[in-house]
C-alpha cells in the first residue's frame, strides 16, 4: 500500500535561543499527523539546507526571533535554489514586522506566521500545498 507522508523540517537559524515557538509548532504539526524533523537552535543556513536535502522534506519552517530574518530567510531560500531544491516550500515565523513580509515573500518565503497565529492556519497552508508536493 502506498502512503505519502508529508515531511516538515522545523529549523531555527540565527543566534537567538528562544525555541519555545519552534518546539510548539513542531509538536502541534506532529499531532496533526505530519512527520516533523527538529534540529535545535543556532543552525546555519548551510546546515539547514543540507538537513532539508538529506531528510527529503516537503516543507522547511523557519523560526527566528533575533531580527535577522531579512538576511537569513532569503539566504536559505537561495541555497535551496542553488542545490536544485527550489521545489521545497519555505515558510517562516517568529517576531517579524508586518512591513518585512512582502520583501520575504518576494524572496521565496511562501508564508509568514507571526506570533499568535492559530496552528490551524499553518495546517491549512500546508494542506493547500499538498497537491503541489505530489507532482
Amino acid at each position, binding site marked *: *500500500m*502506498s*502512503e*505519502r*507522508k508529508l515531511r516538515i523540517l522545523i529549523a531555527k537559524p540565527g543566534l537567538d535561543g528562544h525555541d519555545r515557538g519552534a518546539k510548539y509548532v*513542531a*509538536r502541534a*504539526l*506532529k*499531532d*496533526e*499527523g*505530519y*512527520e*516533523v*524533523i*527538529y*534540529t*535545535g537552535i543556532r*543552525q*546555519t543556513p*548551510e*546546515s539547514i539546507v*543540507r*538537513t532539508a*536535502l*538529506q*531528510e*527529503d522534506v516537503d516543507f522547511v519552517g523557519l523560526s527566528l526571533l533575533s531580527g535577522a530574518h531579512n538576511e537569513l530567510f532569503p539566504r536559505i531560500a537561495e541555497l535551496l535554489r542553488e*542545490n*536544485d*531544491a527550489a521545489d521545497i516550500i519555505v515558510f517562516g515565523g517568529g517576531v517579524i514586522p508586518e512591513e518585512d513580509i512582502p520583501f520575504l515573500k518576494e524572496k521565496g518565503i511562501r508564508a509568514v506566521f507571526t506570533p499568535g497565529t492559530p496552528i490551524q492556519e499553518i495546517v491549512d497552508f500546508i494542506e493547500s500545498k499538498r497537491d503541489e508536493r505530489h507532482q
Partner: protein
Amino acid sequence: MTDLTRDIIRGKTRAIARGISLVENNTAGREELIDALFPHTGRARIWGITGPPGAGKSTLADLLISSERKKGHRVAVVAVDPSSPFTGGALLGDRLRMQSHAEDDGVFIRSMASRGHLGGVSGATLDAIKVLDAAGFDTIIVETIGVGQTEVDIIELTDIVLLVLVPGMGDEIQAMKAGVMEIGDIFVINKSDKEGAEKLRTEVEYVLGFKYTGEKEKMNPVCMVSAKMNKGIEHLTGEMDERFRQLEEAGELRQKRKERIRKELLRIFSLKIHELLDKKMDFYNNVGEWAEMIYNKDVKPYHFINERLRFFLKKESE
C-alpha cells in the same frame, strides 16, 4: 540504469534522499530500484545502536560519527523514532544531537518514523540501508527507537549491535534478560560518571555470565562510556573493530549476512503471497461482509477461510 540509480551510486545527496523516500513510501519503482542497487551493496559495515529511551543513543552515535570521520570513513546514519499510533505523526529529534556534522560532506543523516512497525525500526529501514550501502558509505549506523523488552529487529539489519544501558534502571536489567539483553554484541554502559554505573556493569556481567558459563572468553565486551564527557569512546571503537575481526575470521559475518537475506526472502515471499491472494480472493473488500456472516454464526472462521482457499487453488489448477 535510471538516473536515480546512477546518482545514488555516485553518492549524490538529493538522489540518496529521494531513494530512501521512495522505499519508505513504497512508491512505484521501489522493487526495481532495490534490485538495481543490490549488486552495489555489501561493502559497508553496518552498526546498530539500541537501548531504552534516554540511554544516550543519539549522543553516542554523534561521537561514533566523529571517530569514523577521523579515520577518513564516510558515514551514514538512519535514526528511527516512533510514529504516533493515533495520528500517524512523528517528531523526529534524534539528529538534534548530531547536528555538529550537518555541514560535513562525508556524513549523511536520515530520520525515519517507525510508521506502525513494532520491532524498534521501520518497515523500510532494511531497504534504506541498501540505498546508503550502494551510495558508497563506509559505515552505516542504525539507531532504533527507545526499546523496552522485545524490540529486537535491529539484530536482523546490522552486523554488530551496541546495546546502550544507563545506571538507575535497577531491576530493569532483570526484566530485560529475555529480550533485548540477548541481542547485544557489545554492551555499552553510558553515563559512566553517574552513581550506580559500576553496579550496573556487575549486573550486566552477571547476566552475561549465565549465558557463557565455562567459556568466559566468549563473553560480550562491556564498555564504560560517558558520551557527554567524550570518555571511553576509543576503547569502545577498539572493541568494535575487534568484534568485526572475529566475525570476519570465523566466517560469522558471511553467515549473518546470509541469514539476513534468508529472512528478507521470507518476508518478501509472504508479502507477495498475501498480495496475490488478496487480489484473487478480493479479501480486503469482502472481509467486512464475511465478518458479518461469521458474527451471525452463518459460517465458522477456519472452515470459511479454508473453503475460500480451496476454491481458489482449484480454480488455479484447472
